[in-house]
């Protein structure tokens, strides 16, 4: 049954990378060709993800479509690709976001070729993380997904409203790094320190298992001493968590997202932060179950802080991009809360929230970019009445906002409902209360922003001739918007995949072999 495409997963991972290689040889002035090649690379990956979903045997479950190529046999490292139900849903998410992301950055004129090369390399890494079954290769792909961000933000980002702050402020001043370069450098350094933690955790597992392989199934089946799990798990939690926006290591994210160009914000908030959460659950919790069980109260409590703190911070922002960025911090808290519940509903909800929030925040950032490109401002109070001149943008923005606050019929509702039910069923039922307060706060700030920007009085004179959604933007917005509604109305489309993988992993962590 695998005959037609023997290496489907390999193709998904490779196609953006191959497109990037092809772009190296396309002259920079052929802008249209550059964009078409990028779109083709993303399109093949998206198509591959859909085919994977269709081929995935829901009855059989487990890991499917496996491929294996030895890489460093001396250390037991090999390129092992396979997907489980979680992988399928996250592949779909990544495919949708990158395809829409390329469409949304169609008009980028500055150094177009380099931009798409970096973007495609990055997305290859993301795909790789979701399908690799070798822990080391997992880490390598993770790094590929993180590193191009430095240049993507540093070169194409905006310095608007980004100011240095925090305990290391003097360092930034000393090296004269400000604006987007500050955001880029801060993001890179924080995530790399996280990577160092991850690497230590991975080594600890490799050495303690004595298995001389990085195969995730083998390492996961090994029995680790409790003492080692107690210190190795937080390494992985904080390491991956720094990308997943875990409080207080989220501070790179608002600055990074606010200064990143549109497609990069979409990809970063939409998919990359999920890598972090996925890493915490798939590597940290599943592979070091006793460590995870011991730390779950802390994870849950921090997640709750994330939800409420993120929402309160979003509320006090004037810059539209910061609002969306802080809302991401808040929503990633929902993912971590779901993970901390250790219940089927909670875990299903966590993965589903990754999907739902990915699509939703992708839509948000696409629209923020679109509005900024036309109005040249992201300052919410100075906007108003945009709904009259750009009704389509207003429609999609409202849709994303409704999903963000968890309106039934949108994907966000299903995810948050599952997580809150899971929280209620868990040992710490009180988690559900701040969680729901967070959802309420989300409604306050997100509806406030929608009203101010699109439905309030105005538009003022300088905004009279704003152009509505056009050309390729329609493609990006329609794909993301319809995904949000379709999955919201018919959640089993994605949930069936997720639920196929959850019980097995949950058994491992609860020790119910």
């Amino acid at each position, binding site marked *: 049954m695998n005959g037609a495409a023997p290496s489907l997963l390999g193709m998904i991972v490779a196609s953006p990378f191959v497109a990037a290689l092809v772009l190296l040889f396309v002259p920079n002035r052929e802008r249209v060709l550059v964009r078409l090649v990028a779109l083709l690379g993303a399109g093949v990956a998206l198509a591959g993800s859909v085919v994977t979903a269709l081929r995935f045997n829901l009855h059989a479950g487990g890991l499917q479509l496996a491929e294996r190529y*030895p*890489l*460093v*046999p*001396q*250390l037991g490292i090999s390129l092992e690709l396979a997907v489980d139900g979680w992988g399928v849903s996250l592949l779909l998410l990544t495919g949708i976001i990158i395809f829409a992301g390329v469409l949304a950055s169609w008009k980028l004129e500055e150094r177009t070729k*380099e931009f798409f090369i970096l973007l495609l390399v990055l997305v290859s890494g993301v795909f790789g993380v979701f399908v690799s079954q070798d822990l080391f290769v997992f*880490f*390598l792909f993770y*790094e*590929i997904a993180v*590193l191009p961000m*430095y*240049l993507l933000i*540093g*070169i194409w980002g905006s310095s608007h409203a980004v100011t240095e702050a925090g305990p290391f402020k003097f360092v930034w001043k000393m*090296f004269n*790094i400000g604006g987007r*370069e500050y955001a880029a*450098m801060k993001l*890179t*350094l924080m995530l*790399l*320190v996280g990577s*160092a933690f991850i*690497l*230590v955790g991975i*080594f*600890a597992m490799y*050495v*303690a298992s*004595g298995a001389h392989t990085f195969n995730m199934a083998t390492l996961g089946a090994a029995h680790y*001493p409790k003492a*080692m799990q107690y210190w190795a798990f937080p390494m992985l939690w904080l390491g991956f968590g720094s990308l997943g926006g875990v409080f207080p290591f989220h501070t790179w994210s608002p600055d990074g997202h606010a200064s990143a160009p549109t497609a990069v914000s979409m990809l970063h908030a939409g998919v990359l932060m999920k890598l972090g959460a996925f890493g915490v659950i798939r590597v940290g919790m599943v592979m070091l179950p006793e460590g995870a069980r011991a730390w779950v109260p802390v994870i849950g409590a921090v997640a709750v802080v994330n939800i409420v703190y993120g929402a309160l911070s979003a509320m006090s922002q004037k810059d539209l991009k910061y609002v969306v960025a802080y809302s991401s911090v808040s929503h990633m808290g929902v993912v971590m809360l779901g993970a901390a519940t250790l219940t089927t509903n909670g875990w299903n909800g966590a993965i589903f929230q990754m999907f739902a929030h990915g699509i939703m925040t992708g839509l948000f950032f696409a629209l923020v970019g679109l509005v900024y490109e036309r109005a040249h401002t992201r300052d919410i109070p100075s906007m108003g009445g945009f709904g009259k001149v750009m009704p389509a943008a207003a429609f999609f923005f409202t849709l994303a906002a409704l999903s963000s606050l968890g309106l039934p019929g949108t994907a966000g509702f299903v995810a948050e409902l599952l997580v809150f039910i899971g929280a209620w069923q868990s040992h710490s039922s009180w988690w559900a209360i701040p969680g729901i307060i967070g959802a309420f706060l989300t409604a306050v700030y997100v509806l406030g922003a929608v009203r101010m920007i699109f439905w309030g009085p105005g538009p003022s004179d300088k905004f009279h001739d704003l152009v509505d959604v056009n050309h390729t933007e329609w493609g990006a917005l329609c794909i993301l918007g319809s995904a949000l509604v379709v999955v919201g109305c018919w959640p089993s489309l994605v949930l069936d995949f997720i639920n196929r993988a959850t019980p097995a992993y949950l058994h491992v962590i609860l020790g119910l072999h």
Partner: protein
Amino acid sequence: MNPTLADLAPLSLDLMLVGAILWVFVLDLVRPSGAGREAGYLTALALAGILVASFFVRTDGTVFAGSFQGGGWSVFFDRVFLVSGLVSVLGSIEHVARHHAHRQAEYYILLMSSLLGMLLLPGVRDLLLLVVCFELMGIPLYVLSAFAKTEAHEGGEVNAPEAGLKLYLVGVVSTAITLFGLSLVFGLSGTTSIAKLGHTAPSPLLGVALLLVLAGMGFKIGSVPFHMWVPDTYQGSGTPFVAFLSVAPKLAGFTALAAVFLLGFGHQVQAWRPVVVALSLVSILGGNLLALAQTNVKRLLAYSGIGHIGYMLMAFAVTGPDGASMLLFYAAAYALTNTGAFLVVEAVGADGGDDSISSMAGLYKRSPILALAMLLFLLSLAGIPFVVGFWAKLYVFMAAWQVGFRALVVIGAVMAVVSLFYYMQVARAMYMRKPEEDAGELRPGRALRLGVLLCLIGVVGVGAYPAPLLTEAQNAADPLFAPATPAAPQTSAALAFGQNDD
């Protein structure tokens, strides 16, 4: 006993190099106004030829009553030296032709003489020969670093004579210290044969002797606290020569250290290991932290190189086949990467740059290929995945972790992140700054481009598929410890200890 020519087989690579030196020398003599650019091309061709020959010639066996041993270890290092020499010669051709048009052959003869010392060093198994080879390597370097004589260095505050004098004084003093230490070793052991040093009884005086040798060698490899000559010499000397100086002599220093400590005193590892670990720690910390403050790319690379010496010392302190093979891998990775980075600096400097970080501004526009190459070299130096430097650091960390140097590994990893910060300062200039108004397209000479390309292929190729080089390194290091040397059981004991510890 009549030695035949066949007995010299272990020295075949070295003899070929002697031939090449004579060839260039004669060429210089017969040309009416001395050899021109062709001396450089000839040298490059000869080095490439010897490099290729190293894959076909059998060099196993010993000569001179066991004082020199050929074989895998020696050939691996020889290849690294040859690659480093070849690439920096390629980078030198334009530079030498422009600045020293009338004494081009001299430059290459000196460089090859130094290389000859290096090629011999890994195989040396006798203390006297060790010192001789070390000086054969070192003395031409003093001359080369001051090769520009009085010609003012463009824009730099350190000039070539100062650079040369610093290297010379430090070199001579460190040789004296090393010699003093080795004479004590000889007094205590009664032999100059490295293989027999193992029978020396441990004593406090031996500890002092080893400390002296380590300090002397520490100057040569430029580890903290013996590093002060490094940045000044790098800044003052010609960049293509620094590409060579920053790599090959340091690695040669490691082969000498390996001969004395791993092979000679491998069984008394406890006597010297703490000192090496301490040197490693201060070099990693000092090199990386001091690099943060640099505004000159050559000085930045100098300090970062000190940090890399620290990582190599970490591998060295692991001892045994594991540590030795990781040292080999790191050496190869460092050679490819650092040489490449200096060549890019040369390309920019030759076009009117002053070697400052800001002179790299807008390189992406002036030469996209060079900028990309430099970016990859920098990432490799920082130890980022999918370039060779990552695997090098990873392997060293794994080996060190398993023998229990946990704190050192953690500090090393944190410092790797710090290093990314200053490497990114260069990347920032290249990609996020506009080129200066008068800076046009950058087109370095063909030879230099070839040199950069060779390094780039190595850095990316091995980075993508490290297994073959790792196998080579292991094959080269294993036999060194095979014939019942005391170091091997030490390591396996240490390994078992490391695993029990979890």
